[in-house]
């Protein structure tokens, strides 16, 4: 039972264009969402987060959008750079008062120079 789904295993984008990575979740109790980036042979690194009381959070080139009614969030990277090429994981906190996070299966982004 995959509670956090990233249905696109890979994505290729031209340098300078927008990258959009999507994530769907099933449990309306999830209240906090994060995106992590992972390079090969390294652990994931935190990128950006959003609380369920918001619908948008922006940090430089990265923006996360949350649509609670659709149980969907997306990460926008603009403009995309070759250094953004990595695997991106979305994660959801399993509910208020818990520190348990459910991760998606990841989307491999390749930014073409």
């Amino acid at each position, binding site marked *: 039972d995959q509670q956090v789904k990233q249905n696109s295993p890979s994505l290729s984008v031209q340098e300078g264009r927008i990258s959009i990575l999507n994530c769907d979740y099933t449990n309306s109790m999830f209240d906090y969402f994060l995106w992590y980036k992972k390079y090969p042979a390294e*652990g994931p690194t935190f990128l950006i987060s959003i609380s369920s009381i918001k619908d948008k959070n922006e940090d430089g080139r990265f923006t996360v959008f949350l649509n609670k009614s659709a149980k969907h969030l997306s990460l926008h990277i603009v403009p995309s750079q070759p250094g953004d090429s990595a695997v991106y994981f979305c994660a959801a906190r399993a509910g208020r008062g818990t520190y348990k996070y459910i991760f998606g299966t990841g989307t491999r982004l390749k930014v073409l120079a």
Partner: protein
Amino acid sequence: GAGVSQSPSNKVTEKGKDVELRCDPISGHTALYWYRQRLGQGLEFLIYFQGNSAPDKSGLPSDRFSAERTGESVSTLTIQRTQQEDSAVYLCASSFVEARGTQYFGPGTRLLVL
């Protein structure tokens, strides 16, 4: 370095043997997590420790898996009688409680069970 460290970085073992994986969290981080990532899959929660509270072991896949943490320092994940399906990258992460959600991950231990 000030990051999360894990050892060994790679471990090859024979089916049926026990293995012990180690995680050194960032100093001062009260929360510590273990995850497993099988090939082509996402991060699978195994266990987390928070201060002196009882650990959440709900993600441990079987009683062959156990983990310990001494205070707010080192943690070890032990897999007894390893099976081939235990082959995966085992990731450890730590965080401040106050920094909600911001987990700092180690590089992982790649375990291969032959």
